[in-house]
């Protein structure tokens, strides 16, 4: 449909234009309208608004959830894999090693401290202060456990073969 009269119509219509000054004037009015009618639920710049904990939590909820999940899973792995969970407790820190003690363990009047610090006296005989650095090594701990609670020792004492054999 390349009719000449249609081409003339198209060409004539192309002459109808908005003057640049008119365009700028309407554009400025529209800019004011847009500023006066912003899109709702827009978070204002940080400098103009005080910190909001709920907003922060809402924005970083995913990261917080992942971090707490990893902490829980990590703690679970540690407790399952260690033979002696108490090894990781500050309670087992030798009494002589002041540098490794947590601040609250030095206050004996605190009810929390009495409950947590008291086992130190029980551990002390196993890991004497003089050999504290060696006593905390895994080999010495495993060795002590093996000699006292070794399943082998139980097996040898209650061996079914020894009982059934004439």
């Amino acid at each position, binding site marked *: *449909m390349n009719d000449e009269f249609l081409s003339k*119509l*198209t060409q004539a219509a192309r002459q109808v*234009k908005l003057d640049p000054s008119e365009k700028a004037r*309407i554009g400025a009015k529209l800019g004011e309208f847009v500023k006066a009618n*912003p899109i709702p639920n827009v*978070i204002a710049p940080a400098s103009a608004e005080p910190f909001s904990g709920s907003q922060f939590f809402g924005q970083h909820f995913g990261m917080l959830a992942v971090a707490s999940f990893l902490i829980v899973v990590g703690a679970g792995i540690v407790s399952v894999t260690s033979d002696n969970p108490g090894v990781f407790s500050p309670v087992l820190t030798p009494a002589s090693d002041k540098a490794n003690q947590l601040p609250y363990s030095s206050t004996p009047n605190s009810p929390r401290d009495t409950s947590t610090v008291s086992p130190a006296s029980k551990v002390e005989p196993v890991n004497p202060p003089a050999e504290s650095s060696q006593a905390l090594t895994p080999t010495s701990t495993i060795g002590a456990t093996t000699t006292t609670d070794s399943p082998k020792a139980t097996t040898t004492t209650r061996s079914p073969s020894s009982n059934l054999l004439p």
Partner: protein
Amino acid sequence: MLSEANNKEKEFGEAYEQYSDALFKFIAMRIKDRERAKDMLQDCFTRTWQAIVDGKEVENMRAFLYKVARNLVIDEYRSHKSVSLDAMTEETGYEVASRSGDNPSIGAEVGKIREALDKLPEEYREVVSMRYIDELMPVEIAEIVGESANAVSVRINRGVVMLREALQIEK
């Protein structure tokens, strides 16, 4: 959320820069009143922005703007119901089209074409105008008027045939 709002503002500003001339032509060629067309152009963009603020998801900004402009033109026709299109034409002439026309004879010829176009039934006039005045593709026209591209193409062809007959032009 902030960047999304900024993006929409930016997109809206770009749409104004890109489509305001064409939309002005779309309105002015139908209203035939340059000053009123400028007001309606501004109204077209403010309504579009208000729709965005109200949560309307605008996928095709150009088509959306044309739809708003088309509705404004229809409203304008309805508000001037007592004044016929012919009367409006007589009142304002082809001021909009002839304003920057270089050749008076071409202006007169175009005037005759426009007169014949205005006498076409609305369903044909609209699509022919969109195709040859606004230079929109049938697919774009289809989106604006809410019909299939095939139906629009058929109507354009029929409208051109009718226009040719009205102007007594032989193919």
